[in-house]
């Protein structure tokens, strides 16, 4: 049974000095954040700093010989190696194709599937299933579907009189094929984010607009779309970053070919580092990719903020 602390000495004993309490709170706070902080330092900041140092060396992984070369690897990439700019161009094409297509499709699906109707859960599951499907299985199935003559896609096109291309063997079509198959695989994730956002918009706004005589398009354009802005921003940033980092899809479906037509930055870094063992050069490329993605993200955030103001 608790005894009330009426005794003066006990009260003094129990009183915690202000500074000490502050300290104690600070210690507790640090203890709470320390697991994530430790993880951040070991698994993110540490490797990032290490990659920056590696990028200023010429280091062969196999021979373990390293020499400090300053900014030479960056100069090589930016001014002496024509492959680099070809790869950057491919990455930009990939992002420019994937981001709008993914977002437009995700929003369309979300608008169609945000309201309850019979079978809505089934349709949501169908569109979300590819997200949780193994990337390897996905790529293998699509490689079969996209065969030239024996592939199901071209056979279906042939039924309607279209002579489909050799999808994965022609550079431009290969890029289009990896973009579309990537969109189909990942669109479910953005769809879920949009559905969640749509469900937070009060129905009153829509009803009020309808009473004012607004059409469906006007309701979407003037009411729903502005209210989706924060979600759109997050989706755009995440999808852009993801499109620059794409590796597995390229590795599994085209290996960067044909004719380097799908050789994107992340795959090029992998080739340089893990096939040719040029760790220094690969690290410089990774730092360039990091800066490019960071700049793009900041620009998107700034543009969006300006837009919202």
């Amino acid at each position, binding site marked *: 049974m608790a005894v009330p602390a009426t005794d003066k000495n006990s009260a003094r004993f129990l009183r915690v000095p202000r500074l000490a309490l502050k300290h104690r709170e600070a210690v507790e706070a640090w203890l709470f954040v320390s697991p994530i902080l430790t993880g951040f330092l070991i698994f993110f900041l540490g490797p990032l700093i290490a990659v920056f140092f590696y990028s200023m060396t010429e280091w062969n992984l196999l021979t373990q010989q390293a020499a400090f070369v300053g900014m030479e690897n960056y100069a090589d990439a930016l001014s002496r190696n024509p492959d680099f700019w070809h790869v950057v161009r491919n990455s930009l094409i990939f992002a420019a194709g994937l981001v709008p297509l993914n977002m437009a499709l995700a929003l369309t699906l979300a608008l169609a599937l945000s309201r309850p109707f019979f079978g809505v859960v089934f349709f949501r599951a169908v569109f979300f299933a590819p997200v949780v499907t193994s990337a390897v299985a996905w790529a293998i199935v699509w490689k079969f579907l996209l065969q030239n003559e*024996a592939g199901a896609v071209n056979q279906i096109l042939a039924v309607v009189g279209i002579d489909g291309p050799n999808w994965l063997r022609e550079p431009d079509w290969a890029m289009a094929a990896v973009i579309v198959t990537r969109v189909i695989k990942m669109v479910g994730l953005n769809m879920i984010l949009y559905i969640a956002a749509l469900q937070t918009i009060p129905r009153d706004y829509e009803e009020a607009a309808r009473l004012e005589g607004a059409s469906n398009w006007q309701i979407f354009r003037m009411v729903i779309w502005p209210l989706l802005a924060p979600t759109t921003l997050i989706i755009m940033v995440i999808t852009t970053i993801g499109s620059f980092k794409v590796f597995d899809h390229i590795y599994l479906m085209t290996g960067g*070919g044909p004719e380097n037509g799908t050789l994107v930055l992340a795959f090029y870094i992998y080739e340089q580092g893990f096939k040719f063992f040029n760790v220094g050069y690969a690290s410089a490329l990774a730092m360039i990719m990091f800066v490019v993605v960071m700049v793009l993200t900041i620009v998107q955030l700034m543009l969006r903020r300006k837009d919202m103001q």
Partner: protein
Amino acid sequence: MKAARKSLVVPALMALGMMTTTSLSAEELRFTVWTGSDAHLAMLNGIAESFKETHPDVTVRFETIPAADYTQKLTFQLAGGNPPDLGWIMEDAAPTFGAAGVLMDLGPALRGIEGYGLEDFSPSAMGLWVDGEKVYGIPFSTSPFMIFYNKAMFDKAGLEDPLALAAKGEWDMDKFQQVSKALTEANPGKWGFEFKDGQGYDSRIMHALMPPIRAYGGNAWTNGECGFDDPEAVAAVQQLHNMVFKDKSIVPPGEQGDYFSGGSAMTINQISRASKMPEAGFEWGIAPLPSGPGGESPVIGQAAIVVFDQGKQKELAAEFLAHMTNEENVATMAQFFPPARQSVLNSDAFTQSNELISAEQMARVSDAIAKGKVLPSHERSPQILAAMAPRVDALWKPDADVAKALEAVCAAVQPQL
């Protein structure tokens, strides 16, 4: 109570002590391989078990790394300070690993073992693995590429099979083209020929191009000069190109054939792949590669066992390597991996070693080893292949100018040579 506790603690400590002593005295060698085949691993473990007769405390752990990632993952293990004690390496990685100084010189150890017979390995088979007196690896597989054929599809087309044609001396590149076309016509929806594992347009470029180029008397490169645009190579690749796009008898780029499930009548592969044939469910056989204007020119894929210089148990690893490549064990491995030891290669034991392949066909394998040359390799093989790949992609188009495409291949490869 105290006595009871003591009676439990003392035996536990003793057991712990015994375990520690055991783990200190027992030694384990880690050996990386790329095979995951149960039959191959059972054979390798059997050889490791026989090593215990002389080294009772030594165990060998075979670690499988898939072939596609093998060289890369092995490099990471070496770079990460976690080298295996021994490993297989492929012919295209040999110059790279040799130049990097990561392989142990096995010469002194092997020459010091009485009765080992290092000279039993033919100089041509050892070419990639020696540098003067230094020996960096012992080939365990000197396996020629052979034509695997689907007998049922040949019968359906009313054609003599490649083995019969080879016996009559008629198995050449022209016949190969005729037969492939006839097979495609007789088996609608299927193809006459498929490149190795259906990967001839991407990861197996060399396996697709080198057999015809060698048959025409050409080569990939010689003394630092690219040979892909030499007239012999152009003629050879033009014939392949015609077969793919005019005859439509080779599985074209962008399609999946699969010989092993009956999708193609012929393919090219090594005898280690014969272990997959019982599942195929059709009658099959193997025959030599077709000859060409350059005569018979078998192409060999080679792999060797090496000891890594960073390993902590190098001497013990070298002893195991010597055990694994002694005459008896080479004869055991010959059922899957054709040997470089001449005494085994020339014995009846070799021609009768594989129960899936007849003695007549194994004699063809033996003949190909004697006459063949190993696939081209170079210290900068990964860079050469990467430089070639996009130019070879341009070659595999219906309207490609083969000579120009091969000139572009050489322009890309030459700086790497």
